């Protein structure tokens, strides 16, 4: 039986609507973009499009476990509740903590926060949003008095200048990027400026790219504020603002500054220290022409959007960076109006929802906090509790330090993987290993964090769970159940409520449906609000289950005054500060905390890839998402590659003062000399030594406590491999076979279509490759073997067939330049190989006359680089549209269009 259900994508903060055609009998899904959803209007990226491939039961956690043994919910919940109570009794209430996730639904988040802050009575609940959004939260709070994103996605189509700061939008928010690209096509006046040390795929649509020195953003924006504020070019004149005399030039909005802001004089005084264009350019290592161009466009364009993301947030001066951007918008009055404003691109599907419920340790609930007088009392009355602590709890990095130091003795991790994602991740791992009681609720059985759990609680995953999420533009959308829960998996809110009930808080956690939680959350947002708090969805305080189920995407606030939601905030120029005025923040640039030195001479930058999500527990299940970037890699500038003797496609070991990682070297001039970039996704489940978190310095922004993931001093050296190789096999070695059996010091596991790919390297050679292969892959006695061996060259290759069907392929060499894997991997979907293919197999290349697609560019339609290049050449294709018409490449999610353009180059 099939059914069509509207739901929301579980990946990035764009929050795209999905129309899912559900076959409940075979648990199959067809995924399409929801044409009616205002975030995406039918578009989906490669990750969202592949959701149907991630809902199988492979890898799922389907029953509770205690110490690795399956058990009942009763036993597991009793153990969790009792251990938390005992720990609190013995060590005090500060000895327990929850570490949650922007993947949780708002309802899950709400009860988790309520349990911790309202009833257990400490604020030790923090989430992985600390790693991506907290600088934005802090910046908003400082400037606007509330954590509020002023604008909306529709502004993208209205703007005449879009500045993308520290954001590889093309890969991290692909649908927003497509929207900007489309806007540029319809509005030729729209200029795009990309500010990023790396030349990313986002630069494809840039009219100007400013590859600034890592960490120099505040100087660039202070310089802009200075430029805007002073007569940098012409028409010097003095005005009096807030009784202070400053000199200014067009386009400063004197009237706005005077009536609706505070702190301008101090901010501009500090900003003036950035100097003139030449001085800014020198500091940021940019050309003065480029800086001048950016400043000119910014000053001369009224409708400016400044979109920023992790390049801004993940910094020890992240909050200042946010405010340095907001300052420029306040100085020009470009906020609260169509087509303009600062806009934080959130990382996670429900980072915003988490912020709304107060899921960060320094927040209380519903945009109330510990510091604002009356907030604690108000929430206590609403929750009918007297347990609310006086102050905030431990933010993520400090929380795991406290676990490491034994101050926190019981921790419950929900839907996230801190052993991979947190800075100094090896210390996080050690902390959890030493922690007396670790509970992990997750939908996936084996994660680096779940492996350390004493109690594992099976949570429902996307497609099963039911609730709401909020995207970057404050839009609340429903994530709906597509399938019934599977196995013993339960919704997170249910699990939390069950534990809360067992801890003695039955009345406050008597929820039986997510709509009941949503109602309470909505009621709290409106409780004694009267317009004093930005977050207000009191219109839903009495929403029925039917209306909740039918809820259409809507932007908060949604209250009596705005029953249909609110596209833009601050249209009335009133802010949520005590004075009602927006605040200029005086920003004094600070360099990143740890500078490169002789021992660690390079700067490590980290980030997301186009086709993977977070720690890959779900996206890596979809074979087509594993093709774009199959392995952990490190991007290195050609000059640095030469200095450190790194070969393209060879392996390198990166080391910082905190840890190490091994990755495939990609030599590219898209990265600056002195910088290296690694992707953030790989885990111990998928790679021997690919956790970038181990490298990252655990230093945090003093205001937001967000760690500086984009800047760690690092050294790099070639990995001393005696051999390199890969295995393609239908066998999953992490299942019945042990990956360790491969005797590889370096390994990466990549799921493909009907096969697994293992990239391997080793520091010592086995005695005999033939025996090695037979031992590893010769399980089936019916295996027919094909082998190629050239010991002199260090080459060993073999293939095993079972009843004529390709079962395994092994390629070994004493160098890293093994043949492309694409053609070989394409053979696993065939039941039998032609003799021609079989005899060419161990060359790694198709026999003459068979086209090799090359490395996959378009993951949606599986179109390879060689196919595209051949078509461009033979059909004289000129534009990405031509390529799309001809090969379909780039016509679905469009996120590969920059690469197609590159090929058209």
């Amino acid at each position, binding site marked *: 039986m099939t059914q069509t259900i509207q739901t929301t994508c579980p990946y990035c903060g764009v929050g795209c609507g999905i129309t899912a055609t559900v076959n409940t009998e075979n648990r199959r899904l067809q995924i399409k973009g929801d044409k009616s959803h205002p975030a995406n209007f039918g578009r989906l990226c490669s990750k969202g499009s592949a959701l149907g491939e991630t809902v199988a039961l492979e890898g799922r956690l389907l029953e509770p476990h205690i110490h690795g043994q399956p058990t009942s919910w009763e036993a597991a919940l009793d153990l969790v509740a009792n251990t938390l109570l005992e720990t609190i009794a013995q060590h005090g209430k500060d000895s327990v903590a929850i570490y949650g996730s922007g993947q949780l639904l708002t309802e899950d988040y709400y009860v988790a926060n309520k349990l911790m802050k309202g009833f257990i009575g400490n604020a030790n609940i923090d989430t992985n949003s600390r790693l991506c959004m907290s600088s934005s939260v802090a910046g908003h709070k400082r400037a606007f008095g509330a954590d509020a994103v002023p604008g909306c996605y529709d502004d993208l189509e209205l703007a005449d200048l879009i500045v993308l700061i520290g954001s590889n939008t093309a890969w991290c928010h692909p649908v927003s990027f497509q929207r900007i690209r489309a806007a540029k096509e319809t509005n030729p006046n729209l200029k795009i400026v990309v500010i990023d040390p790396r030349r990313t795929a986002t630069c494809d649509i840039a009219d100007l790219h400013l590859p600034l020195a890592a960490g120099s953003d505040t100087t660039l924006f202070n310089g802009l504020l200075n430029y805007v504020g002073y007569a940098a070019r012409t028409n010097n004149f003095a005005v009096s603002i807030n009784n202070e005399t400053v000199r200014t030039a067009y386009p400063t909005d004197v009237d706005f500054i005077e009536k609706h802001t505070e702190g301008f004089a101090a901010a501009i005084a500090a900003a003036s220290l950035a100097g003139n264009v030449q001085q800014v350019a020198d500091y940021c290592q940019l050309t003065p022409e480029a800086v001048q161009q950016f400043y000119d466009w910014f000053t001369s364009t009224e409708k400016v959007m400044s979109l920023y993301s992790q390049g801004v947030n993940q910094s020890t001066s992240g909050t200042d960076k946010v405010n340095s951007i907001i300052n420029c918008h306040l100085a020009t009055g470009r906020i609260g109006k169509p087509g303009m404003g600062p806009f934080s691109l959130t990382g996670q599907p429900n980072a915003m929802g988490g912020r709304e419920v107060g899921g960060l340790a320094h927040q209380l609930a519903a945009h109330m906090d510990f510091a604002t007088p009356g907030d604690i009392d108000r929430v206590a009355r609403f929750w009918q509790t007297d347990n609310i602590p006086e102050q905030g709890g431990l933010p993520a990095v400090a929380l795991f330090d406290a676990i490491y130091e034994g101050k926190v003795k019981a921790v419950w991790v929900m839907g996230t993987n801190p052993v991979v994602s947190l800075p100094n991740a090896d210390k996080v791992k050690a902390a959890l290993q030493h922690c007396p009681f670790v509970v992990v609720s997750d939908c996936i059985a084996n994660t680096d964090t779940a492996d350390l759990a004493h109690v594992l609680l099976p949570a429902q995953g996307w497609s099963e769970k039911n609730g709401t999420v909020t995207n970057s533009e404050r839009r609340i959308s429903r994530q709906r159940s597509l399938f019934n829960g599977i196995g013993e998996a339960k919704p997170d809110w249910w699990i939390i409520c069950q534990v809360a009930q067992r801890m003695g808080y039955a009345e406050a956690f008597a929820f039986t449906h997510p709509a009941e939680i949503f109602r309470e959350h909505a009621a709290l947002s409106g409780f004694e609000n009267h317009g004093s708090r930005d977050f207000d969805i009191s219109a839903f305080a009495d929403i029925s289950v039917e209306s909740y189920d039918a809820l259409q995407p809507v932007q908060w606030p949604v209250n009596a005054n705005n029953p249909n939601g609110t596209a833009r905030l601050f249209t009335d120029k009133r802010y949520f500060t005590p004075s009602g005025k927006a605040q200029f923040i005086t920003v004094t640039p600070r360099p990143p905390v740890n500078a490169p030195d002789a021992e660690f001479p390079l700067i490590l930058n980290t980030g997301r890839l186009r086709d993977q999500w977070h720690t890959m527990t779900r996206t890596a299940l979809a074979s087509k998402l594993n093709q774009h970037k199959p392995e952990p890699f490190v991007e290195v500038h050609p000059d640095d590659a030469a200095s450190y003797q790194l070969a393209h496609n060879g392996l390198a070991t990166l080391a910082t003062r905190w840890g190490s990682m091994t990755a495939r070297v990609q030599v590219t001039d898209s990265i600056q000399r002195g910088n290296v970039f690694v992707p953030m996704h790989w885990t111990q489940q998928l790679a021997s030594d690919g956790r970038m978190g181990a490298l990252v310095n655990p230093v945090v922004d003093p205001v937001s406590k967000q760690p500086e993931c984009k800047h760690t001093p690092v050294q790099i050296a070639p990995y001393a491999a005696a051999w390199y190789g890969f295995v393609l096999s239908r066998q999953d070695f992490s299942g019945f076979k042990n990956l360790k059996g491969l005797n590889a010091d370096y390994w990466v596991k990549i799921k493909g279509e009907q096969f697994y790919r293992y990239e391997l390297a080793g520091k010592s050679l086995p005695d005999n490759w033939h025996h090695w292969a037979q031992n590893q892959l010769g399980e089936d006695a019916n295996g027919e073997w094909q082998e190629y061996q050239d010991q002199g060259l260090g080459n060993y290759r073999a293939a095993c067939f079972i009843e004529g069907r390709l079962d395994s392929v092994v390629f070994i060499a004493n160098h890293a330049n093994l043949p492309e894997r694409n053609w070989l991997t394409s053979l696993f979907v065939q039941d039998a190989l032609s003799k021609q293919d*079989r*005899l060419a197999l161990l060359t790694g290349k198709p026999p003459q006359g068979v086209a090799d697609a090359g490395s996959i560019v378009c993951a949606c339609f599986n179109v390879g680089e060689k196919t595209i290049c051949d078509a461009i050449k033979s059909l004289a294709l000129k534009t990405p549209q031509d390529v799309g018409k001809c090969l379909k490449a780039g016509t679905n999610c469009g996120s590969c269009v920059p690469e197609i353009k590159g090929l058209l180059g």
Partner: protein
Amino acid sequence: MKQKLVVIGNGMAGMRTVEELLAAAPEQYQITVFGAEPHGNYNRILLSSVLAGEKSMGDILINDRQWYADNGIRLFAGGDKAVTRLDRGKKQVHAQDGTVADYDRLLIATGSNAVRPDLPGMDLDGVVSFRDIVDVETMLAYSQSHRHAVVLGGGLLGLEAANGLVQRGMSVTVIHNHAVLMNRQLDPAAAQLLQAALAERGINFKLAAKTEALLGDDNGHVQAVRFTDGSELPCDLFVTAIGVRPNIALAQAAGLYCERGIVVNDTLQSYDPSIYAVGECIQHRGDTFGLVAPLFEQAKVCANHLSQHGMAQYLTLPTATKLKVTGINLFSVGDFLGDADCENIYFTDTALGIYKKLVIKAGKLVGAVLYGDTVDGGWYQELLEQRADLAGIREGMVFGSSPT
């Protein structure tokens, strides 16, 4: 007046030389050919195919008597025309029937004789070698009337004989003194594939076997083979194929310098400047010959000198071996075993029955064994002969010459 060229031997080497000579200098010689077999000239290599029933005698004839007439060649063919004496002083050859021919230049191409094992019972009826049309006719006759054939020798010729006899319906066992079939051409791995394929066709093997004697019945006909371990095999036809020996009796009798064969220089000239020799009867730089390819090369060089162009030099190159058994592809060339200084490249696909081994020394290909897939044999031979630099092609070469 034309010079007189006499050719002793109407086989493949001699006649190829004559053909080359006719092409190079058609008017230079008056040519006389003596042959001990009563036919024109035929392709001895294809005798196996005749035995296996894949070709007829007519198919393998190269030049019939008319061809000799058309080219003005006097042909003395048949048992009574066998040359019995060579008089170098008078520059004359004498045949058995008293025919005498004068020569200015003499070409000896007497070929080789089968090596006969030194076994009790070799004089019994039903014991044959595998050298000429008469041997084939004998074997064919036995295959009609007898059941058990035993072939002594697991080399190229022995296996071809065994295959032919099995095709003709006989029960065949191959006896080989070595554990590896065709050990002069194959390494153990390839030999095992070959053995399995031949066993599939019904051929039995007794390897690393020591034959003690042939046992006869009351009529003096062979009936069994006995081995040193005491075991016996029933045997109605005993075919020996343990190698050949240059046929140098005539040359030796004439006092021409011989070692294992008639010793010739790089122009195929013997120690007597008037006498040339080609084919399996010669010894050149220590080598004797058993395969056809070098014989043709010798013919070319020899004709070049006989025609007084005097340019060419003969150099022995590694010769490739192919087994003429339909459905079995096998190729071997050069130093296929290699030594401690060699590096081997292997390719195997057991289920497809493919085995390839390339032997490389100092960056050059020195040998190859191919089983099952021999299409690239020619290319390897070329690489080997040219001593080609393998840099750049080494990684892909075992997969073939077509750029895959």
